[in-house]
């Protein structure tokens, strides 16, 4: 919060006391991710009831999922987590080039993942309305896809700022990379669960 104090030339608002040793934005993001987890959880509950409690086959006859395409696609998404981490490590060591390259690579990988996912939808040969299982499949992957898109938008903004020379190695100057990065890692980890439950199990 020192950064805030330095900018405080209006002089009105007293600086809030910092009663816990965490960054507010970071904590906010962690809580937001928690609620996102629960949102995914509600759809996993639907999956659980339809597949396990009700015991319906997964997936129904004639609605097979392309396991291997998804596997390759997962690899792409997971590697974007690595590039994101690299970007963050870069700025922590004041390596702006690593920051920029890392961000651009992450965006490209994420966009590729999303593109492949969309094309998978098109080539699946069945529609969300064709069965309860299909509804669960499309909404879980769709929900995840929506998170990818939001993540990409945030990362594009971050990249834009990185190219404009924002961010620095000091702790309070790279929260702007770290927090979007946290979100991106969440999107990736979430995919691990979505992928495992829908495609593998």
């Amino acid at each position, binding site marked *: 919060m020192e950064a805030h104090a330095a900018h405080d030339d209006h002089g009105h608002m007293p*600086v*809030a006391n910092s009663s816990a040793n*965490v960054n507010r934005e970071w904590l906010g993001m962690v809580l937001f991710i928690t609620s996102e987890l629960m949102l995914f*959880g*509600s759809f996993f509950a639907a999956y659980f009831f339809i597949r396990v409690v009700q015991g319906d086959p997964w997936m129904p006859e004639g609605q097979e999922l392309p396991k291997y395409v998804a596997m390759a696609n997962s690899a792409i998404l997971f590697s974007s987590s690595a590039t994101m981490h690299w970007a963050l490590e870069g700025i922590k060591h004041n390596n702006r080039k690593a920051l920029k390259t890392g961000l651009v690579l992450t965006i490209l990988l994420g966009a590729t993942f999303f593109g492949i996912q969309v094309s998978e939808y098109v080539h699946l040969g069945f529609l969300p309305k064709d069965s309860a*299982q299909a509804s669960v499949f499309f909404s879980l992957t769709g929900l995840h896809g929506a998170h990818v898109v939001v993540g990409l938008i945030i990362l594009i903004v971050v990249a834009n700022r990185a190219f404009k020379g924002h961010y620095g190695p000091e702790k309070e100057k790279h929260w702007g990379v770290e927090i979007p990065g946290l979100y991106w890692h969440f999107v990736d980890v979430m995919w691990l669960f979505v992928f495992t439950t829908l495609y593998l199990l």
Partner: protein
Amino acid sequence: MAASLRSPGWYRAAFSMAIGWVVAFVLVTGLRLILGWQQEISWESITTVSLITVPVAFLYGIGCMDYWLYWLSGKPTKVDDHADHGARKWQDYFHFNTDHKVIGIQYICTTFFFFLIGGMLAMVFRAELIAPGMQFVDAQTFNGLFSSHAALMIFLFMVPVFAGIANYVLPLMLGAPDMAFPRLNALSFWFLPIAGVMMCLSFIVPGGAFATGWTAYAPLSMNAPMGQTFFSIAAQFAGSSSILTAINFLVTIITMRAPGMTFWRMPLLGWANFATSLLVVLATPFVAGSQFMILFDRALGMNFFDAAQGGDSVMYQHVFWFYSHPAVYIMVLPGFGIISEVISTHARKPVFGYRMMAFSLLAIIVLGFAVWAHHMFVAPMQNWIRIPMMLTTMLIAVPTGVKVFSWLGTMWGGVIHMRTPMYWAFGFITMFVLGGISGVMLAVVPFDIAVSDTYFVVAHFHYVLFGGSLFTIFAGIYHWFPKMTGRMYNESLGKWHFWLTFISFNGTFGPQHLVGLEGMPRRVADYAEQFAAWNMFISISSFVLGASVLIFLYNMIYSWRSGPIAPANPWHAHTLEWQVSSPPPMFNFDEVPTVVGHPYEYGVPGARHGIFKEPEPVVATVGAPAEETVAEGATGADDTSSTDGDA
């Protein structure tokens, strides 16, 4: 005009909403043209999409996104931009504002507005129920009336009004200049009018208002008319609002407490909101999920709930109640906090068993996640689930009971000032205990099988929600009215309001236990002759109950405009919000106070809660709740320039 279209406000909002609607139209119609569908223009799909685009456009127009758009463009951040802070004239309350005190008032007024609408809907259907047979409305309208009554009361009143009170009071209590994320705070507020207006608008769409209850059970809601979509999307806005506010509260409580205010020195309202916000963050996404599924089924033809396609309609109930049981605690835990403040202040006694009060809140939220299926004892659910759910549900009465007994312990030996907030606190304890008792009865499976979905349940939840939560809200509003408005309310009107409400409340909801036990189903427009006498009595009491709200309104409006000027600390309370002027200065504290002791040390000689001076070395040892340190810090602080505002 052009200028007012560029700056945030209602003109820009109206204009961008029009654009939002056009966007929905173009999107839907364009997509249908591209896909080559038979009928290019589908008003139903356009309306569905516009229920998302128009509100987003409104949020932009009113100014919720200006700063974020500025940030998105890559410009440097302006951390200390307070341009949107504070209200100078009453019109400011109708604009985007980032001051938690303004937002708090905005919340309270908006939620009470929807409370009045919800109440009037209830008056209409109580009139319909005054006698068997149909009198004033048809069955479909009737179903719409009680559904929107419940939805407005729950999503637009009970849940957000507590967020409003806490918004105003909590940062002050914690010694913080504002909430952690003021802009997010404003955004969460502006979600509310959107949700409320959307629910109300469903009355004018073809097919009428949503008529499937606030629970919107599938498959009934899948094929219901258009109004159902309004409910589902409105619930999303209301839900997002609570989640974002809860995150804001949590971050504020965790990171922005005044120096020296450890968790164990935090006022119980802070604890209550901490627990509630945890519940909201963890549970509310499930109601979002359930309404997403309904929306997907309705708009995209998905089949989550259609048995013929392998769907499972009982799954909806599980997902829904996994939120909605915690939701009932979301609607009462903040009230527990308010009651602790009110009783301790007006009985001038330390809260009895402060730590147990906090622990029982945590016990309630943990147990609260393990009881949801008690709403499904008669649903086609596996029979064995009923037993564990019965036992956990009955157990939840224990921490609830601990709180009740501790309130009694707090009063015991106090100096009780029977001011209006205290009347409501007494009313709350008695009525809430009755509601808790009927709750435990309903938890008992064999009995619940007999009375589930009858008026007995209606009586139960009105005792806990009206006699419980709403009474705490009234207590809180009266208690903090001087702080919020700088004026005193009228005591005798407050007491009239209490007595009229208390009596007619019992007249309205007490007999519902009886008709419920005799087997009168809930949610019916018409009923058997045998229930006629009681229903007549209930309806008449309910009109008196409705009228009692008018006293409250008159008291609030009249006192706000011309009540006597309130001193800074009319109740001689210890918590921080009373140590600043009424209403507080723009940034709450000219200097952040230092907390040197517990918030409720009434009767402890020389004890202080907060002092207004730079932290001294002696308070460096805070963090350890050692009583001695506190006392020393307190006595040492007597000669400092304290702004303790006793007038």
